[in-house]
């Protein structure tokens, strides 16, 4: 099993969700987060004064999947989230050691 964490532009969340549903991903977790990468924040101007925002709003999507479809998921997220501009985000893939469906107690891949 793999645990995939994607940090993406907030407005790309719906396309990502649709792409993942298309390849059979059953569930995901979304959180609103802030961070910076090479983009290094952004500048806002109020009444002529510049404010440098250190952290840019992003959306973090977490998905647990079977090994077989992990590459497919990464590709789908990348394609759906990409705008080609700085700040599109990152996707990380981690090995996942276990899982449990809380309602039934099923363990491992069956729980996904």
């Amino acid at each position, binding site marked *: 099993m793999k645990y995939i964490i994607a940090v993406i532009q907030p407005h790309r969340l719906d396309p990502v969700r649709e792409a993942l549903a298309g390849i059979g991903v059953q569930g995901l977790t979304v959180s609103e987060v802030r961070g910076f990468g090479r983009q290094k924040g952004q500048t806002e*101007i*109020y009444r*002529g*004064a510049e404010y440098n925002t250190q952290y840019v709003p992003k959306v973090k999507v977490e998905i647990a999947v079977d090994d077989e479809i992990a590459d497919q998921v990464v590709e789908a997220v990348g394609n759906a989230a990409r705008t080609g501009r700085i700040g599109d985000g990152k996707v990380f893939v981690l090995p996942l050691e276990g899982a449990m469906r809380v309602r039934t107690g099923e363990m491992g891949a069956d729980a996904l």
Partner: protein
Amino acid sequence: MIDAGNTAWLITATALVLFMTLPGLSLFYGGLVRAENLLSVLMQCFGIACLVSVVWLVCAYSLAFSGGGAWIGDLSKALLSGMPRDAVAANTTLPETVFFMFQMTFAIITPALIVGAFVERMKFSAVLLFTLLWVLLVYVPVTHWIWGGGWLAERGLLDFAGGLVVHLTAGVTALVLAVLLGPRLGFPDEVKPPHAPWMTMVGACMLWVGWFGFNAGSALTAGADAGMAMTVTQISAATATLVWIGIEWAKFGKPSLVGAVTGTIAGLATITPASGFVGPGAALIIGLVGGAVCYFMVGVVKRRFKIDDALDVFAVHGVGGAIGILLTAVFMDAALGGVGFAEGNSMGAQAAIQLTGIGAVLLWSLVVSFIIAKVVHAVIGLRVSAETEEQGLDLRLHGERGYNM
């Protein structure tokens, strides 16, 4: 004799001007601070409104509007004691209760304007004590000089709705408090941007609408003067907004909402003293000048003087009010569409009186505010601890959060 039409309009105008503070100005300022200080700003405006209401009844109204003194009124109307129910306010056709209430709403919004200077770092207790002393020692005397038959009124100074009484007193005091308090932590490079520009816009809209009560109500009658005051108010506000949008567009490539509504307030403050004396053509020019000069002054105060008048009270209200006072002397000329000068008066003579007024009000506000702030500092301290400032005033001073999410 009481006139029903005039009275009906002034009751309406009174409600509009109170609406400018509660909640107009509160939201305008509230949106401009960081989220952890939102409630403290709303609370400061609310607390000031209640405190001034009581002080106005106890003695402030009487000291401002009764008696024939050159410098200050007397206590004959303290607590409105002995006032018959159907008393008529001097030189009006209004019940004295209505005039009392209308003027009270001006006394409320003026110290509330000063809030913009000290947001995010002044103790609530200090805000209340400062306001109490300030209304009695700055607002009341200046109001008496100009609207209560005092020495500036005798000389013919014209301030229709409060360019000096409201905007310059508040603006100068804002500067004094900003200097004595010191800047917010992180000023100028690391202060947080406005947390809710949309809230600032909603507040600005309430101020704009309320300003019809402020300026057109200051005619004290429901007639031609009120109609023209309303008209020039709208034109100046709209023009100054367009000026501000234009400057930001040219300078930064993006016209911002916060900038646009700040231009609105600058245009409104600038037309205020002139609104009863000038015509619509003049309002275009007054809005143009008010918008441009106030924009420029925001940068001067914040970046050149390095004074953290946090929400630009001096640059927008103080400067706007003073410009309006001066331009009144120009555009009241009948040849320029105004009401014309008093008999025997000329543009030069009127300008000299207006300048005297600016100088006197500026000096009085500066010196007396400084003394009051020093006294409050000695008694209870002006500023919250650095820890409180970092965590935000809402939780530390009021025990609640603006947003529980």
